């Protein structure tokens, strides 16, 4: 009798500790968000998005930062998605289990845990110096692509692995080839989870600062990379250009980092506003990922 009572008390204690641990994280986050909101919300207006950084805090904006972020994200996605998904499909569906594939698998898992500064150093050596891309948006996009590549490979594989074996059997049994099975059965079934992984990886990339600072992304930029599509008054009116890829750039987190390190109070407010924009962006991406996952789970039950 005494024993059960004691167990009940222990049970209660653990329950309480668990709640406390959960609340701790939530409360810290809440405090942080409220703090940032109260500091920066008032600063967010249209001109904040359409102005270049400036020496005067009231006139400074995040135009070059968010445009740079969009550029790098686009390049990152163009590189990391096909490579990552392709590698994931190969490793999960095609590669025979061997010592080599084992070795590769372990290393990909390790790569996903390498600190992002190291990727910055790799980018600096490989893209900026060796390939002479300089501190361009292209070098930045490539570096972030390398950074999230292992994450995308891993999440793609996980998504493929979640597709039941019986479905592959069913497809092979009616005489489908491996490619048909992967293309028409496995990939569609895994699509939602793959997409979720991609969005989470991208939302990580959008907030990365260290590797881009390492490759030398500028902290003060008052122009935009040349737009890939632009108009002119003379023939042929519409132009395409990839020159912008080689222009220097900055991104949101670097702009924030730059403002935080300034002494004036006004820049502090700007930093808070920038953080709100960045937070909002990652929040939207994560919500999208959750909605997709949920939607996918509802659509496919096995």
């Amino acid at each position: 009798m005494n024993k059960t009572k004691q167990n009940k008390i222990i049970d209660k204690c653990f329950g309480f500790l668990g709640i406390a641990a959960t609340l701790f994280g939530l409360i810290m986050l809440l405090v942080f968000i409220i703090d940032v909101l109260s500091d920066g919300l008032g600063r967010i207006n249209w001109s904040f998005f359409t102005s270049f950084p400036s020496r005067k805090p009231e006139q400074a904006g995040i135009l070059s930062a968010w445009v740079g972020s969009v550029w790098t994200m686009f390049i990152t996605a163009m590189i990391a998605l096909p490579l990552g998904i392709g590698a994931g499909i190969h490793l999960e569906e095609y590669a025979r289990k061997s010592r080599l594939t084992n070795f590769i698998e372990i290393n990909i898992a390790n790569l996903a845990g390498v600190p992002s500064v190291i990727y910055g150093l790799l980018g600096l050596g490989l893209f900026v110096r060796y390939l002479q891309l300089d501190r361009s948006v292209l070098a930045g996009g490539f570096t972030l692509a390398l950074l999230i590549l292992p994450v995308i490979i891993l999440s793609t594989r996980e998504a493929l692995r979640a597709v039941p074996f019986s479905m592959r059997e069913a497809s092979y049994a009616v005489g489908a080839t491996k490619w048909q099975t992967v293309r028409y059965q496995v990939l569609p079934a895994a699509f939602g989870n793959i997409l979720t992984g991609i969005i989470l990886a991208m939302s990580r990339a959008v907030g990365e600062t260290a590797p881009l600072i390492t490759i030398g992304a500028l902290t003060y930029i008052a122009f935009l990379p040349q737009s890939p599509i632009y108009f002119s008054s003379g023939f042929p009116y519409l132009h395409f250009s990839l020159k912008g890829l080689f222009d220097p750039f900055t991104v949101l987190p670097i702009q924030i980092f730059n403002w935080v390190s300034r002494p004036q109070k006004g820049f502090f407010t700007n930093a808070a506003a920038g953080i709100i924009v960045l937070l909002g962006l990652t929040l939207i991406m994560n919500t999208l990922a959750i909605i997709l996952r949920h939607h996918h789970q509802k659509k496919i039950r096995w």
Partner: protein
Amino acid sequence: MVNPTFRITGLDAFYGNKHVLKNINIDILPNAVTALIGPSGCGKSTFIRSLNRINDLILTFRREGKVCYHNQDIYAKDVDVVELRRRVGMVFQKPNPFPKSIYDNIAYCLKVHGIKDKDKIDATVESSLKKAALWDEVKNSLRQNALTLSGGQQQRLCIARTLAVEPEVILFDEPCSSLDPISTAKIEELIHQLKQSYTLIIVTHNMQQAARVSDFAGFFLLGELIEFDKTDKIFTAPKDKRTEDYITGRFG
């Protein structure tokens, strides 16, 4: 003597180090139903799954000995496994429809073989669903997701899917284990009809079913083929004591 569809000689099968089929020798005759019976875990599924090489997908699976299909060793190097599986269809123990519409489940099987003609696909969807005794229940909901069907309906869809490919052989792995008596009767009737043009192998735990539908029957026990003969012989005058014990229900 007709040429056997399958001639299996000295077949041994392993999962890793586990020896699950031991020296199986058997001839499967065309236009006949061969039933395989035996207690759970004796290797019946493993046996029929090695006839269309679907077990190749299991990484630990390994086999020795010969499986000849129309005198061609299906485990030989130059064999086109995709073509083999098209000609040797299979209905699995657990229903495994694709998470697509009923229509697309069947249409997919035709598309993988390059059939794109919409009218032909429509006609095959209807005819194979009719053969599998499912048409009346689903004809108004062909666009419905197949996973919303009941277990028995799913299994009949899987049978329809197999028929749509028009194989020469159909391997049934306990096709009726999740069916009610009415659909079971329909499937048995179907098997009876299919016999005219197909070679059928059916694994079943139901002795009456084996006796009703099959022409030949084989009794497996712990990975060995104990006895193989005409069905009426197996059920009326088995040679082996263990076969007799099993079919009369005196066995574990």
